[in-house]
C-alpha cells in the first residue's frame, strides 16, 4: 500500500499534513506518534471512513482514494477500531460470521431459500471456529460479545478482520488496555499469521515496549506529518523521534 501526500483538515486543524508512506507486502509495520498526531485519522482516510482533502492512496496497482468503506473491504483491506466495537447482542461466533464476505444468505432474496446459503454458512462456521481456536476464544464462541473483557473484545475484532480473508489488516491499537501477557500473545499471533499466511499488517500502537520487538518497520508521526520511517533500530535512534515522541 502506498500513501502519497495525503492531507486532511478539520476546520483549522490540519490532522494530516502531506503524509507519504509505504507498507510493504508480508510485513508488520507499526505507526506510532503522540496523541493527536493523526494516526487514527490516517487509518480512517485509508479505509474510506473519512475522505482526504488531497493526496492519493494506492493498494497494489489500484487507486483506492476516497472509496467507500464497503469497496475498501471488498478489495481486501480489513480494519479494527481503537475502542473495541462489538455487535453487542450477537455471540462471539456470530460477530465473526457477520464479517464473512459474499455470503449469499445475507441477501434478502437468497435468504428465503435455505438451500441457497446453508453450505456457505456451514463453511463460514468452520472457518470462524478455526479462527476462534487460533485466538484462544473457542470457549467463548456462544458468549454474547458485550459480556467479554476488553482484551477478549480486541481478539474478537482481530478475528472478525481475519474472517475477511483480507491481504492487508489495519489494526488500531490492538493491545491498548490489554494486560502485558495477553498483549505479547496477540503480537505473537500476528507474527504467526504473517509468517503462516503471508498477511500484511499496518498497526497503530502506543505500547512500544511490547510492539517493537515484533515488527519489521516503524513509521513515526507528529503533528500530522511523517517524521521518520525505518526498522525499529533505525527509528528509536533517530533524534527527531527522540525529540518528538520517545524522549517526551
Amino acid at each position, binding site marked *: 500500500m502506498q500513501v502519497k501526500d495525503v492531507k486532511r483538515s478539520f476546520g483549522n486543524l490540519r490532522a494530516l499534513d502531506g503524509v507519504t508512506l509505504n507498507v510493504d507486502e508480508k510485513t508488520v509495520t507499526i505507526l506510532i506518534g503522540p496523541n493527536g498526531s493523526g494516526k487514527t485519522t490516517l487509518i480512517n482516510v485509508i*479505509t474510506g*471512513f473519512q475522505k482526504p482533502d488531497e493526496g492519493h492512496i494506492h493498494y497494489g496497482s489500484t487507486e483506492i482514494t476516497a472509496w467507500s*468503506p*464497503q469497496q475498501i*473491504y*471488498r478489495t481486501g483491506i*480489513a*480494519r479494527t*477500531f481503537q475502542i473495541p*466495537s*462489538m*455487535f*453487542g*447482542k*450477537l*455471540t462471539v*461466533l*456470530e*460477530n465473526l*460470521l*457477520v*464479517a*464473512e*464476505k459474499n*455470503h449469499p*444468505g*445475507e*441477501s*434478502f432474496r437468497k*435468504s428465503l431459500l*435455505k438451500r441457497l*446459503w*446453508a453450505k456457505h*454458512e*456451514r463453511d463460514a*462456521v*468452520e472457518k470462524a*471456529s*478455526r479462527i476462534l*481456536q487460533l485466538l484462544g476464544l*473457542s470457549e467463548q*464462541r*456462544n458468549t*454474547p460479545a458485550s459480556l467479554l473483557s476488553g482484551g477478549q473484545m480486541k481478539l474478537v475484532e482481530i478475528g*472478525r478482520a481475519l474472517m*475477511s480473508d483480507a491481504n492487508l489488516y489495519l489494526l488500531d491499537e490492538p493491545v491498548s488496555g490489554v494486560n502485558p501477557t495477553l498483549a505479547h500473545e496477540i503480537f505473537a499471533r500476528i507474527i504467526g499469521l504473517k509468517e503462516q499466511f503471508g498477511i500484511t499488517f499496518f498497526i497503530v500502537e502506543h505500547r512500544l515496549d511490547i510492539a517493537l520487538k515484533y515488527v519489521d518497520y516503524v513509521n513515526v508521526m507528529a503533528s500530522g506529518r511523517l517524521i521518520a520511517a525505518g526498522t525499529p533500530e533505525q527509528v528509536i535512534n533517530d533524534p527527531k523521534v527522540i525529540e518528538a515522541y520517545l524522549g517526551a
Partner: protein
Amino acid sequence: MTPLDQVILFVVDLLALLAVYLIINIGLNMQQGIAGIPNFGIVFAVAGGAYITGGLSTRLAVSLLGVRTNLDPIFNNVAVLASVNPILRSQPLTAIVLLILFLMIGGMAGALMGLISSAPAIRLREDYLAITLLAFGEVLNVIGIGYKPLIGGPIGVSVPDIFGWAGEYRFYLGTLVLLLVAIAIFAFAGYIIKTPFGRTLKAIRDNEIVARSLGKNITQYRTSAILFGSLLCGIAGSLWVLYSGAVTPTYARFDWTFLPWLMILLGGMGNNRGVFVGSLIFVTLNKLIIYYKFEFVGILPFDIVWLNYLLLGIITIFILIYRPEGIVQERWTAPKQDLSAADRST
C-alpha cells in the same frame, strides 16, 4: 344473546384484532427490534394497504367477475356491491382467489408506502430518519379525505364480502383466516431473523460503523428491512378492511403506530415471542376494558372513557421503570447447525 354467545363473540373479536396487531407488530419489530430503524410512521404502510384494498377491491371484483354495470364502484359503492357480493357468496373458490390477490396488492402497497416514506432520509442517522417517518404518518388520511375517488372521501367505502360464502359463520371464518395468516407470518419472520440476512440486520442495529467497515451496505439493508416490515403492515391493513367490510380515512397514528410501539415495548423488542406476548396482553386488556368499562360507571371517580388511556399510561410507566427490555428479552442465538462437527474439523 346468551352469556356463552357473548363469550364467543368476545373471543372471536379479540382473536381477529390480535391477529392484525400481531402482523403489524412483527413488521414493526423487523424494523425497530431487528434492524434498529425507529419507524414512527407505520400507519403510512397500514393505511396504504387498507386504502388500496378499499379503492381497488370493488373495481377489480367488478372486472374479474364480469359484472356488467355503468355505476362507479366508489361513488355507487353499495349498488355495485349488491351485484358483486351474491356472486362471491356462491363461489367460495373465486372469493379465496380474490382474497389472496387483495392481500398481495395490499402488501405491495404497504411496501411501496414504506419505500416512499423512508426514501428521503434512509441515508441519514436514526434520529433524522425517525422524524421523517413520523412526519409521513398521517399523510394518507389527508389524501383519503380529500381525494374521493380513492375511498369515497370522509364516509369511506364498503369492500366485497370475501368471507360472505360462510353465511352466519362469516366472522368466524374471517377470524380464522386472519389467525392463519398471522401464524404463517410469525413463522416466516422467525425464520428470516435466524438467517444470515437477519444476523446482518442485527449487526447493523448494534454497531453501524463496524458493519460498514465489514463491507455491509447499510442503506440497502435498511431499505430491505423497511420494505419487508411495511409489506407486512400493508397486508395487515388489507386484512382488516376485508374483515371489517369497509374502510374510512380514519387510520390514526395513535391506533396504528403508537399502540404497536407500546405492544412491542411491553413484550420485548428483537424477538417475535416478545412481540406475541406484548400483543396478547395489550389487546386482551384493551378489549376487556372496552367490553366491561360500563360496569365501572359510578365506581370510578372519573369518566370511564379515560380508562383506555390510563391503561396505556400505566403500561408505559411500568415498562420504562421496571422492564425497559420488555417481558421477554432478546435471546442470544447461535447458528443452528452441528457446531461440534465444525469444532472437530479445526
